């Protein structure tokens, strides 16, 4: 299986998540101390005068607390309030600086990637001034380490939320409100991301693969993605393409270089090169792929892809073809 790094907001791999993790530890220690103090004082308050003989009216009730106690207590509480205000102020300042660092205006030369949320998968488009150079893929995002990346987020059905914990905080994809977010990856690695806003039945399985890689590796990957689907190189693959084009697959999927041009489902032009299928849920192995094609709803109940009947031979051919789409 793929070697994704441990998914955590506290294991940063980008400038943004590092800033946030830093802020987190400040908040963590400050609040930990506050909590410990409250707990200690509560224990002392209870234990120092604890009545062992309860319910003795003469001793249990102090109808008029002593004036001296009251004024001392007033001083203590006032001091605590002042301290509270100061601490909050300090935290707010930390918050402010972190916010500034994260929301500094993005590099105009940033790599622009358009991400569209669908129930329940991610459409990913690498923008390019030249329309023919635009790369469309799904559920797997590659970015170069050290380069600013700007995500253009949008949704056309319900609200989703884009989140890769190791990279940056999340951003909601609200229909009617296209938005952007940006980050700069600082080290290579493979991470997991997922949709964070409840978006219906399969919200749980709207995950994605996120790969930060050295600039060279990235540009290799991108140029491979720019190519149309490779021509089938064996009979079986050729037959697989026939099967694909003759069945209902074409109603939903695109394979660049063939007449399959539909956009209801993920672009499959380079499906063979993807690590996972079904929006980051299943490893891209022949077995899972076969199971998925025959009966996607069995693997992902509610999915918008219907089951498909086909003969074993057809299926094998189809798998050969899909696997060849590197």
């Amino acid at each position, binding site marked *: 299986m793929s070697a994704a790094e*441990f*998914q*955590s907001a506290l294991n940063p791999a980008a400038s943004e998540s590092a800033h*946030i993790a830093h*802020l987190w530890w400040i908040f*963590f220690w400050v*609040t930990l101390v*506050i*909590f410990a103090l*409250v707990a200690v004082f*509560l224990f002392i*308050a*209870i234990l*120092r*005068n604890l*009545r062992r003989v309860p*319910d003795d*009216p*003469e001793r*249990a*009730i*102090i*109808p008029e*607390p002593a004036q001296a106690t*009251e004024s001392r*207590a007033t001083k203590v509480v006032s001091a*605590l309030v002042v301290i*509270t*205000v100061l601490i*909050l102020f300090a*935290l*707010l300042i*930390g*918050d*402010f600086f*972190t*916010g500034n660092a994260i929301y500094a205006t993005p590099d105009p030369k940033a790599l622009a990637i358009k991400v569209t949320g669908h129930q329940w998968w991610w459409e990913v488009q690498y923008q390019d001034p030249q329309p023919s150079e635009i790369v469309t893929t799904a559920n797997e995002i590659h970015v170069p380490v050290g380069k600013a990346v700007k995500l253009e987020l949008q949704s056309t*059905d*319900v*609200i989703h*939320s884009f*989140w890769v*914990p190791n990279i940056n*905080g*999340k*951003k*909601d994809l*609200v229909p*009617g*409100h296209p938005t952007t977010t940006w980050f700069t990856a600082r080290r290579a690695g493979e991470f*997991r991301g*997922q*949709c*964070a806003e*409840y978006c*219906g*039945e*399969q919200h*749980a399985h709207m995950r994605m693969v996120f790969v930060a890689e050295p600039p060279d590796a990235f540009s290799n990957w991108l140029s491979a993605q720019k190519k149309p689907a490779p021509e089938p190189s064996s009979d079986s693959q050729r037959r697989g393409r026939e099967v694909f084009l003759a069945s209902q697959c074409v109603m939903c999927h695109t394979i660049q270089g063939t007449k399959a041009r539909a956009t209801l489902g993920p672009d499959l032009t380079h499906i063979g090169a993807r690590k996972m299928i079904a929006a980051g849920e299943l490893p891209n192995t022949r077995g899972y792929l076969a199971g998925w094609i025959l009966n996607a709803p069995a693997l992902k109940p*509610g999915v918008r892809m219907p089951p498909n009947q086909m003969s074993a031979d057809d299926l094998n051919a189809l798998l050969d073809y899909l696997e060849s789409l590197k």
Partner: protein
Amino acid sequence: MNVSHAPIASLSAPNEQAERALAALWTRPPGLLGWLCSTNHKDIGRRYVVTAFIFFGMAGLLAAAMRIQLAFPENHFLGPDLYNQFFTVHGTTMMFLFAVPIMEGFALYFVPLMVGTRNAAFPRLNAFGYYAYLGGGLLLWGGFLVNAGADAGWFAYTPLSGPDFSPGHRVDIWADMITLTEISALSGAVVVLATVFKQRAPGMSLNRIPLFVWAQVVTSFMIIFAMPAVMVVTAFLAMDRLAHVNTHFFNPAEGGDALLYQHLFWFFGHPEVYIIFIPATGMVSMIVETFSGRRLFGYPVMVLSLIATAFIGFGLWVHHMFATPIPLLGRSFFSAASMMIAIPSGIQIFCWIVTLWTGRPRLRVPLLFVCGFILLFVLGGLTGVMLASVPLDLQMHDTYFVVAHFHYVLIGGAVFPLFGAFYYWFPKWTGRMLNDSLGKWNFWTLFLGFNLTFFPMHILGLHGMTRRIYTYVAETGWGDLNLLATVGAGIIALSVLLFIVNAVTALRDGIFAVANPWLAPSLEWSTNSPPPAYNFYNLPSVSDAEPLWHSPEQKPVVVGLSTEKREVLNTTIMDAVPEHRYELATDSIWPLALGIVVTLTMTFVVFTPWAVPWGMFFSLLVLYAWFWRGNEPKFIVEAAKPKPQVAAQPTLVAPA
């Protein structure tokens, strides 16, 4: 020293005949029908509390099922469709059918006793409020049982909850249930406010009102200004969804806006959490005062803190929307406001601890729960402060970190005080004491189970576990902590079971409770346990904030109210100077009738907009009957007839 366990003699009936006469006037008619007609605040309060507790149990069972599903990666206990219904119905029930109504129930039961009057204001409105609530609960759970359980989450964001992505009637039922419970909350709020404004015992000026009552006043105001927002937003949603209406409030294609929904919802939703929390602080204040044996330290700042919390509480709603595309500047403002609310909360915590510190604490079960409350609420509040920071929230939003935060503040901040309140007021309510050692077991299992369940969720959230997922793959490494949480939930269930056992056995053969078992200072403890139908034979007057700790027998009592009509004393708003007498409505069947009409209306409006005009027509018919005094069913008129009056009132006249 004059504090004692006995009822205050000057407030009790001079002889048995007198007591029977007044009891007859205020007691509801006999039988089931009489019970349905009751407008006594104690009956109504009790109904709210019991019903809400049952909803807590049922929603808790759903939570247990969710925990089982999440115990292992890729578990198959609940499928996605069921799971989504479960968490939605769990959250909705806990918020709308448990937490708010149970606080309302305590208010309706105890506020009239604490302010020293015989019944709540607007008794029929009060009775109706309960029926509307019950109707809402039945609607939601009825739908759930026929596979039409709401499944869009407890805040049902559009467009997911809209007509295109949630066909069927699940969301309609949810929206209409909200309307019913809000009607109920609003009527409860009006009743509480009018009772506190106008029916306080002579001398109970603003600075002598018990903190629980203050908390309920503040809460009621919050209800009045917050609930209309959720009624508006669910009405918009229902109209967008309803066939033949099909408006486009939230449809971006026609100029509608999904974020409008979020603004309106959270303009209600954030105050809602303080509507749950503030009454709980009122309970805590009462318990701390009693068991530390001294006046609550810092009464005036406590009151101001409540008011400040309420005010600031209306300025925070956007902190639930930090991840949405809204302007940065707005977010910073709401971030600062959210942190600011730590100040009044902190003040309350400090004052409670100082009260305990300078008092003579008796660590009885209610105080034990309060200690649990302080620890857990402070922890939850501090994670709240983390969430208030925009960058941190963007990582934590919609993860189990938030789930942990809100269970700490909801269970730690409201359910622990509630259990404390049960142990504290159960004797007053039922005349029996709950068992002490079972109570300690109850506390410790709850405390342990709670932390086992919800503490790991903080870590899960940081490790990227998003909320509202019905399963997860093993690769994520979330399995162990989830299993731990599930075990914890089992312990919580055990603890709740212990409580139920304790309550049931106490009801059957618990020790009888004296009037003031805890030597508490407030007026509800001056009368018998349980209180008679009329609460006080002679109404009390007060001259300080802890009436039972300062020569209660010497204080003047109010005499001269009618013994033939259900009359109460109205006093002035600020200083509670006697102003006039006021006849309350009798028991009546019409509140139930209206409750049924309104519930049916909201049920049919799931299917057709025509339910609205028809519902309005029938509601008006019922309301005419309701207001047309003297048309109550015969058996009620009979029951309300004046009974032979024997005892002469004492006629001493003294300075007011």
